[in-house]
């Protein structure tokens, strides 16, 4: 056995050399922190090193579950990602159907190039643009919304807790719907032309073709992406929430990841922060497994 392994290694040594850097990186920087998760179950002690503190079991988890920040952070995280998913998921599909229905090649090209563009804007700049356009006194967009009586004159879209989630979700759609539509556009372009012809012979107009040819063609992609997104139901992108936070909206904008950053990194409660983070990871993972299982049963589509 050992000899077999040595001879296999000798044969493949060049391959091992080529994969070594990536493997080492993954082991140190991805599996290292996983090993460090035990920090969540130990009382961190600077003098005893990273994992040398006393074992305290679930103390920090209980501390989180019973703290006044537990419900707000859990709720805020869930609300933000739930609405991001519900509103953000159909947008790229719709966009792909629209792009696919365009007849003029040139317009199609221009639309595609344009809608991808916002994806390349950094989060910092994105949040800054929001602040400028939605500024209560002189923001162009907030002025427009007020003139259209969609929001009341006195609303500060950046500070009102009720406005945080809509602003977050809608700007997220603005930024990434185009990029996320690429995969659906690609799936649509690979639909066999004969299917359209067959549908036409059966008397299907364009609308029926969308419903009975294009949507079914997108379905596997939709399900796979839905599963992957469910696995992130409790992970809100840290950067954008962090940058959009201010004292006025903190009641809805403190999510688990920003809370972990504040307690775990900024205030140095390393064990407590690890525990909160681990709770988040586990919930995500369980969600992923459940949805994966359901879709495997229901549609025979799954990730693993």
């Amino acid at each position, binding site marked *: 056995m050992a000899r077999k392994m040595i001879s296999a290694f000798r044969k493949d040594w060049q391959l091992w050399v080529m994969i070594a850097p990536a*493997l080492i990186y993954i082991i140190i*920087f991805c599996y290292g922190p996983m090993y*460090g998760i035990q920090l969540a179950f130990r009382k961190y002690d600077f003098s005893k090193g990273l994992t040398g503190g006393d074992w305290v079991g679930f103390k920090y988890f209980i501390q989180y579950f019973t703290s006044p920040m537990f419900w707000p952070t859990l709720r805020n995280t869930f609300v933000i990602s739930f609405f991001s998913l519900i509103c953000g998921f159909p947008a790229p599909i719709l966009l792909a159907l629209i792009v696919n229905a365009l*007849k003029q090649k040139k317009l199609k090209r221009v639309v595609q190039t344009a809608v991808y563009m916002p994806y390349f804007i950094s989060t910092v700049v994105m949040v800054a643009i929001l602040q*400028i356009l939605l500024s209560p006194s*002189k923001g162009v967009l907030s002025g427009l919304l007020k003139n259209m009586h969609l929001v009341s004159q006195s609303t500060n879209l950046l500070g009102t807790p009720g406005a945080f989630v809509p602003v977050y979700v809608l700007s997220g759609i603005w930024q990434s719907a185009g990029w996320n539509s690429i995969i659906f556009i690609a799936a649509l372009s690979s639909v066999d032309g004969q299917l359209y012809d067959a549908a036409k012979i059966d008397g299907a107009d*364009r609308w029926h073709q969308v419903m009975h040819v294009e949507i079914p063609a997108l379905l596997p992609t939709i399900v796979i992406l839905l599963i992957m997104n469910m696995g992130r139901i409790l992970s809100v992108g840290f950067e954008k929430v962090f940058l959009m936070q201010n004292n006025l909206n903190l009641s809805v904008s403190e999510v688990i990841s920003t809370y972990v950053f504040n307690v775990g990194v900024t205030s140095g409660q390393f064990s407590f922060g690890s525990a909160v983070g681990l709770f988040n990871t586990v919930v995500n993972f369980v969600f*992923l497994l459940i949805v994966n299982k359901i879709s495997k049963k229901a549609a025979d589509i799954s990730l693993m």
Partner: protein
Amino acid sequence: MMRSRKMRMGLSDRIFYICPTAAAVAALIMVLYPMYFIVIASFSNSTMVNQGMVTLIPRGINFYGYRKILERSDLWLGYRNTLFYTVVGTMLNLAVTLPAAYVLAQKKFKARRVVMTIFVITMYFGGGMVPTYMLVKSLHLTNSILTMIIMGAVSVYNVIIARTFFESSIPTELQEAAELDGCSHFRYFTSIVLPLSKAVISVITLYYAVGHWNDFFTALLYLNKDEYQPLQTILRNILISNQAMAGTTGAGEGSCAQQFADQIKFAVIIVSTVPVLCIYPFIQKYFEKGVMIGAVKG
């Protein structure tokens, strides 16, 4: 009877062609207008901008904002740092990712499944922010240029994209022929595989480079020193923490300073974002392909 039915279908189809065009134009306006507005506002009179008078054409043209940011040494330092992190970091990314993807595309490689599993698990499960932070700290990598380059050296997602490309787009006959000629893996990889993989290389180069350029989190977590700060940190200071007029504001000129601050912000947004936006249309046709293979096989 037949005719009327045909006409009805024709009408509904015609509506169906007009609707997407209208929707596409609406989407185009919604995406482009905010960016267009920022461009014209960056060289318009800020009072007019604030009064809502600048909507379609720039007014009161002046380049105060741009002139002012030329004087901001912190911005240019950030620019220089980010340029460095992006160039060196992306080179490291490629040097690590491409060989790994090549190896994982080798059907004969015995450990292929095991290594792949080790990689893929990290896409769904991780140690979390604090353990990662503690690890980096215990490796003495905080406050170091190295961190900005090493963190995120491998994205498993990009490895999968490249691996799928190697598997599907490079004929296996080539490798068989190369093996018969006694060509080593190193040689085959560098002189056959890489030249044939320009498409996938440009895609993942773009992904990694944009990731470095827009990276704010790594510096927030691991960097304290001012002289190492990347562009995004400086942008945050100027744009979000409102330090646009730092150092030049006197107590008395409050509102006047605030007015110019906005113009500076617009200019800063343009200057920091344009490099990225200029590059991607050239690689667009490749990344459509890249997203497809990555997502389907991932």
